[in-house]
């Protein structure tokens, strides 16, 4: 029982990272129907930024987290302007291939500039373990879970309660009609990229702190898994992405816990296939109103 609860804790902390990443995928997809494969690499840039500011300026963890979110948001918007905006009216496959290109560019660019070697992330928050009913929970796991939940609630508020959020939802439903009532779609799309990338940047710093190891290729696998999480939850749906992230995190942990570690990635992709066959719009995908 203790082992089981411990595994649930493990799954939730892994899942919160996937959820943060999945939100970025889902928001961008909701608005311009683009699967932004460079999203995982923005997460990597966020982690490297955190590494840089903590090591160079000895700032505390929250400054690193917020500055990484700002830098990632700017980078996300820059990528959108340079790489995706010129292709706005091209076939979707063109933009998709460009996204893969951007992903390779970021991965190899970082390897070229800073080396492909794994680095140890500075321990800005000392780790403590809490022992509750025989389960070990570290303060960093709690921090990740709380940060992830706070950011998700914040995102939901922005999307549902602000003018910008209303405009985002309007563009998601019908960009042309939105333009007719005076919303600039380019502006909104830029904002969406910024918001999604900020979450990825935050996930990068959290992962750096949690695992203490970052490298230029760290965004590849989590990026793909987060994409699966977004699809499972219903791509385009914000609560769906959050649920999808936790589902994938718990699934991966569960598969390893029962001794099938060799198949943990396979299990994630099997779920993807099953969902696409049985529920093509994902768990919460039918809720068109949520589409952002």
């Amino acid at each position, binding site marked *: 029982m203790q*082992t089981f609860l*411990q*595994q649930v804790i*493990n*799954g939730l*902390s*892994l899942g919160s990272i996937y959820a943060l990443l999945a939100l970025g995928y889902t928001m961008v997809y909701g608005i311009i129907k683009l699967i932004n494969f460079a999203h995982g690499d923005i997460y990597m840039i966020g982690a490297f930024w955190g590494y840089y500011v903590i090591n160079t300026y000895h700032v505390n963890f929250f400054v690193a987290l917020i500055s990484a979110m700002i830098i990632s948001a700017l980078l996300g918007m820059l990528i959108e302007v340079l790489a995706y905006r010129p292709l706005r009216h091209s076939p979707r496959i063109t933009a998709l291939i460009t996204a893969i290109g951007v992903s390779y560019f970021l991965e*190899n660019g970082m*390897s*070229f500039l800073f*080396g*492909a*070697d*794994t680095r*140890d992330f500075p*321990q800005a928050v000392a*780790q403590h*373990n809490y022992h509750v009913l025989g389960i*070990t929970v*570290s303060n960093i796991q709690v921090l990740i879970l709380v940060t992830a939940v706070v950011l998700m609630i914040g995102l939901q508020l922005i999307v549902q309660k602000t003018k910008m959020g209303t405009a985002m939802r309007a563009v998601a439903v019908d960009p042309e009609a939105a333009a007719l009532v005076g919303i600039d779609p380019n502006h909104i799309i830029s904002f969406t990229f910024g918001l999604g990338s900020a979450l990825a940047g935050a996930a990068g710093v959290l*992962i750096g702190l949690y*695992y*203490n*190891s970052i*490298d230029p*290729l*760290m965004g*590849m*696998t989590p990026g793909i898994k987060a994409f699966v999480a977004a699809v499972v939850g219903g791509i385009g749906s914000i609560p769906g992405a959050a649920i999808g992230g936790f589902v994938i995190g718990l699934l*991966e*942990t*569960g598969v*390893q*816990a029962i*001794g099938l*570690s*060799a198949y943990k*990635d396979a299990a994630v992709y099997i779920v993807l296939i099953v969902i696409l066959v049985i529920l093509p719009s994902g768990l919460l995908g039918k809720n068109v109103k949520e589409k952002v």
Partner: protein
Amino acid sequence: MKQTMKKVVAAAAAVMSVGIMAGCSAKFATTKGNESTGDTIKIGMNIELSGAAGGYGNQMKQGFQLAVKQINAKGGIQVGDKKMKITPVIQDNKSTTSGSASVTAQLTAKDKVSAIVGPATTNDGTAAIPNLTKASVPSVSPSATDPNYTLQKNGKVQPYVFRACFNNDLQGETAAHYADNTIKAKKVAILEDNSSDYGTGLAKAFKQAFKGTIVSTQSFQEGDKDFNALITAIKAKNVDAIYVPGYYSEAGLIIKQARQAGVDVPIIGSDGMADPKLAQIAGATNTNDIYYTTPFSTKSGETNAVAKAFMTDFKAEYSEDAPTFSALAYDSVLMIKQAIEDAKSTNSVKIANALAKIKDMPAVTGTTSVDKNHDPEKPIVIESMQNGKVVAATAVK
């Protein structure tokens, strides 16, 4: 305009094909293999500078460059009665098998190198063999550890394939004996890196040699960062030790997460862990009761003069402690240098023959001889770490 363009292209194509044919006929006219024509000798490096194994490849590049720099500073390699400097040609195979094959073709056919250092992994190394054999150019891999890497399908040795590292069987067996005799472990869990032949090969060798029970064998992939689920599962099994054949980037995380989860049993590993980064990633306070087999120990400077000089020079050059992979790449160059001196020739076939006959060559990773399977014979060391520091290095016979 279009017409002229076409003509130019056609002419260029014709010239090129003549060139290729001329290349062929020239090749048949001379002796087998590459030979240097000028005052320098070309040594190639086919290495993983980007992609999954990029981190290890770059460390090897540093070791390679240091060796070349030092040899050239002393005037070069003695070939018969004249000294020849080394011209290094370093190419990135991007951690891909196709990249490795094409880099080998380029190095042997275009650059006409006399010998090659690399690649880092068995997979990439194996992909290079057909082109090496075709061009009759030897390669020395710093870290391709699969036992069959230097062997042909029929069990005969590959004439142009050498390595500076131990093969998996030796390391896995040594670790198993250590777990049996020194740690006296009865129950062991294995966490293997199944994304490389290295991890699976070592785990296989360990399983065959270990006398106790192996209660669980789980696997992970290169690049994984979360091992909490595996560690929680192992914790419930109450093992005496964990064997982790893999590289420091993942092994460091396993150590960190195991210690934080309260799993304090000894963790045994292989030379992929022998890197100063291991303790940095795991955190010094977590790095206790760690044991791994390695050809190169930072402690070996106390007994080995070559290693001592290497470590001092490496630190002066790159301002960090020398990792094992750099030491192995450095030794790969030393082996090629020794072979060229013994052969008194820059002909690649003669170098290959001389490589196979290396005896008692002083090297960073210990006095090295090459055996009949083109494996190096040198002392294997088990290093133990406490509090993030290597506290002892025991040589194993």
